């Protein structure tokens, strides 16, 4: 089943046509990787899935992004609720300058009324879900800024999980991390897909091949090819895809 479907999606930054007629389905509880050279539109596309591009001056979006049967660009869409349900993790870990506990509790406090015990449970559940609870449980009141890069990124994932999304968007989540932290995040993503849908932008071909179920290749604003990851990396249908993944350009 598909949780998000983009239909005829076009995006202009002023006169620049950044996304051209994108049609793609995002399957539920799978990892979809978006690959392509710098400037191809993959991060732009990722951000259309929870309307993060709304904040860019001069942006114009046409077409549809259907999520749970509704076009998220239709009038009346509550963007705050949308971004709660479709969370985002960025390339550079960006914990809030507050305690580990408050980082996780921030979102739930905004969105709902929780008793202290409920909030404690939610914080623990989120940190466990991001495979970082064991490393931080004894210092929840300490500043998140004191964590390592890999821990901070997992904290950011926990923060996204705390508001109980069903989709996680990840924009190059491991490109700023060391190999050991990268491996932990990749293992976490494989666990997360049991309960969440994950869409990841990555420049790392081996990462995309290792962890994703589906891969979409973008080039100059177009989606050139999309398919099962094994197929895209073993027998790509389009020569441009083959040339990109074999390093002939990009």
């Amino acid at each position, binding site marked *: 089943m598909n949780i998000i479907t983009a239909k005829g999606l076009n995006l202009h930054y002023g006169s620049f046509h950044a996304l051209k007629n994108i049609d793609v389905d995002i399957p539920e509880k799978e990892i979809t990787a978006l690959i392509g050279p710098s400037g191809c539109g993959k991060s732009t596309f990722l951000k259309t899935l929870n309307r993060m591009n709304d904040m860019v001056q001069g942006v114009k979006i046409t077409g549809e992004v259907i999520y749970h049967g509704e076009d998220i660009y239709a009038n009346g869409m509550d963007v705050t609720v949308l971004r709660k349900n479709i969370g985002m993790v960025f390339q550079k870990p960006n914990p809030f300058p507050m305690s580990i506990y408050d980082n996780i509790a921030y979102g739930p406090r905004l969105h709902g009324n929780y008793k202290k015990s409920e909030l404690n449970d939610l914080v623990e559940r989120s940190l466990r879900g991001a495979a970082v609870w064991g490393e931080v449980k004894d210092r929840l009141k300490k500043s998140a800024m004191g964590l390592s890069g890999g821990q901070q990124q997992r904290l950011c994932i926990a923060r996204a999980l705390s508001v109980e999304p069903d989709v996680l968007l990840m924009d190059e989540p491991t490109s700023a991390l060391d190999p050991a932290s990268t491996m932990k995040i990749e293992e976490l993503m494989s666990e997360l897909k049991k309960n969440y849908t994950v869409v990841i932008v990555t420049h790392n071909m*081996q990462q995309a091949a290792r962890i994703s179920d589906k891969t979409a290749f973008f080039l100059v604003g177009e989606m050139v090819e999309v398919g099962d990851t094994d197929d895209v*990396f073993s*027998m790509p249908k389009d020569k441009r895809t083959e040339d990109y*993944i*074999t390093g002939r350009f990009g």
Partner: protein
Amino acid sequence: MNSRQAFDMELKELSDSLIRMGAAAANAIDKALTALHTGDHTLARQVVSDDNQIDEMERSIEQKCLRLLLKQQPVAGDLRKISTAIKMITDIERIGDAAADIAEISLHLNAPDFPEIMEDVTDMAKMARGMASAAIDAYVKEDLELAHKTCKQDDIVDHYFLKIRAVLGEKMRANVNNMDAAMDYLMIIKYLERIGDHAENICEWVEFYKSGVHKKERIL
């Protein structure tokens, strides 16, 4: 030179190595059949000892392929090309072994024991040798049509095997003194038939290289 260009050069060197290994195996078949026809025991012993060089080529190409897999982490066509090479060298090495085995048998035969089969044995050997060379050519030139055409020639090699085997059977039934020599020739044509099979295997891997399909099954 960028890293992609360097990788392309290494893939070209891989193809060149396979051509050299294939040529050595084809040469071994030629020499083994000459030794069989002429009773040249010196030549036969040379074929047997030269088989070590073909074995060494197999090891060297295998190492090349493993290093490429390690360093380049190839995908798509590059992955299929390298994994096909790894499979092919086993078949080429066995072709070399078959030629050496034929040469070894010729050491204790009186040439020619059964002149009436020698023309067919020669034609069978030429066909099998031709298949081996064409199979490697198909890989290097990425020629799927050549691979398919070469595969079909294995039926002709098999036909020769059955024909010559029938004659040898008659020889054995006619005179018990023919038994030892007839069994040796039976071994020889069996080795030639195996060479045809190995060449067919190579062609099937060329199909995998081009299409991801091996023996009608999509494996990558």
